[in-house]
């Protein structure tokens, strides 16, 4: 994207609560941001290392529960609970990375699904800790000094900061030997090994960073909705993330954010105009059209189009 285009986008994002003060629209923007972090996180694994994690909601849920429990039970500040939630999710990512060390493709997918299944079961059945299916109400809103970040405009800026941070980390990674090692693992593993890329090390590293980001999104979600229940582990969250990454353009920096924006705003927009059944149908048709006409995703398609336009 050109420098001017980027400046306009940044300006729009920074001033959004002023020109879009409607709380419902701000809510959609906040959810788009939280899903943006999730999509960036999944993209590190799916887009760069080429490994599909279908248990990604587990890291999101672990972040959400960790942050909720630390603030509710131990009365930690949000600003301590957030990094702790990130660290705990990262630890879970490390575990999965170690477990899946030698597994690729379908087997990797199975391990991640099973892991998410186990964590969800724990959240339902460990009543003393998680309150089971009833969930944890009353998760406190973050405060910053004397100010509460309970209002939607303030929370929007918090989420925006998280999106920027996650994007920055992804950008730096991708333009370094670490990101190249991820891609090498996706493109040709034996060749990567032959020039000294310790592929298992980098698979674990990708899982850790990815899980940490998902944990960040989970914490932000918990303190935004102020309620956490086993619903955070729903498979449909993972499916939504996968759709966002694939539709936006996996293995690109902007793709997951574009996908997150479209697939958060679109269902909301559809809900406003048509009934539930038609929503699902429209959603399905759009997905099929995207897969058929833009198989590599929206962002790569735009990039290819711009290359053709330039003489």
């Amino acid at each position: 994207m050109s420098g001017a285009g980027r400046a306009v986008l940044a300006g729009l994002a920074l001033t959004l609560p002023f020109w879009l003060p409607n709380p419902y629209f701000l809510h959609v923007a906040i959810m788009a941001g939280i899903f943006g972090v999730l999509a960036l996180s999944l993209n590190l694994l799916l887009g760069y290392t080429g490994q599909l994690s279908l248990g990604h909601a587990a890291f999101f849920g672990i972040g959400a529960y960790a942050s909720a429990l630390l603030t509710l039970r131990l009365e930690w500040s949000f600003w301590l609970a957030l990094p702790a939630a990130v660290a705990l999710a990262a630890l879970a990512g490390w575990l999965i990375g170690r477990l899946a060390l030698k597994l690729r493709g379908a087997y990797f997918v199975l391990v991640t699904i099973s892991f998410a299944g186990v964590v969800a079961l724990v959240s339902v059945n460990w009543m003393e800790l998680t309150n089971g299916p009833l969930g944890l109400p009353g998760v406190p809103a973050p405060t910053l000094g004397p100010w509460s970040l309970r209002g939607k405009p303030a929370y929007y800026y918090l989420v925006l900061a998280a999106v920027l941070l996650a994007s920055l980390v992804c950008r730096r990674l991708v333009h370094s030997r670490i990101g190249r090692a991820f891609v090498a693992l996706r493109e040709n593993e034996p060749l990567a090994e032959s020039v000294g890329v310790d592929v298992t090390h980098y698979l674990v590293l990708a899982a850790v960073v990815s899980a940490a980001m998902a944990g960040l999104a989970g914490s932000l979600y918990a303190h935004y909705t102020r309620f956490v229940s086993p619903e955070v582990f729903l498979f449909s969250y993972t499916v939504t993330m996968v759709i966002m990454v694939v539709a936006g353009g996996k293995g690109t920096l902007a793709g997951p954010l574009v996908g997150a924006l479209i697939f958060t705003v679109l269902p909301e927009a559809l809900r406003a105009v048509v009934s539930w059944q038609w929503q699902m149908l429209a959603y399905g048709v759009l997905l099929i059209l995207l897969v058929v006409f833009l198989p590599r995703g929206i962002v790569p398609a735009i990039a290819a189009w711009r290359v053709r336009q330039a003489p």
Partner: protein
Amino acid sequence: MARAAGTLTLAVRDLAVRFGGVAALAGVSFDVHPGTITSVIGPNGAGKTTAFNAITGYLAPTRGRIEYDGSPLTGLRPSAIAARGIVRTFQRTSVFPALTVADNVMIGLHLRGVAGLVDVTLRRRRLAAEESRLAREADGILDFVGLGRRRGERASELPYGEQRLVELAVALGARPRLLLLDEPGAGMTTAEKTTVTDLIYRIRDQATTVLLVEHDMRMVMSISDAVIVLNHGRVIAAGTPAAIQAHPDVIRAYLGSAGDRA
């Protein structure tokens, strides 16, 4: 480069590899001396690629020892062996297909960088310095193999001969002290083979030992300091090119039957 005698030698001792009932290697011993171009020849199925796979950690030998610079390589992962300075290419063309030629070489330079997660996320200057240093090294390597003008093209879109050069450039990125080339000239035109032969000389002159598997006898006999002949998983002869060409077993087992495919 002056090196003490006996160091940086690859020593293969009694190496055996079985695939089910097939003995791909049945107790092979040889040395590769530093600073040489050493070739391994033998008919198809003789066990040449299997030997490369065992030396570089891609498969675990059934029996035997492999030592480099006096310490064992057996049991190490391929990436750890690469870190010891031993890098191989593959018989079937192997590149990072979706990436540009320059990015292929940048991956090859993995061991030339040090940036870890902390540098990448928190030390912007250090990362930028490393990236520009690596990009310069990549340019140097691309010029060396003659792919400077191809740097921005996708590896998969290059013609076959140039893809093999990309592969070589990727391997050189790791700055090997010992480079194992598995049929680098296979399927190439005579002109391309001349280019590769010339490159192998220049690689050797940069203090890299070369272990070469090649079917083109003209190429092997002209550039090798030493030749090892494998047949049915055994070494049937080893020596200078002249000695090998005159060896009756070699003529019978290899040159006589399989013939010179050049």
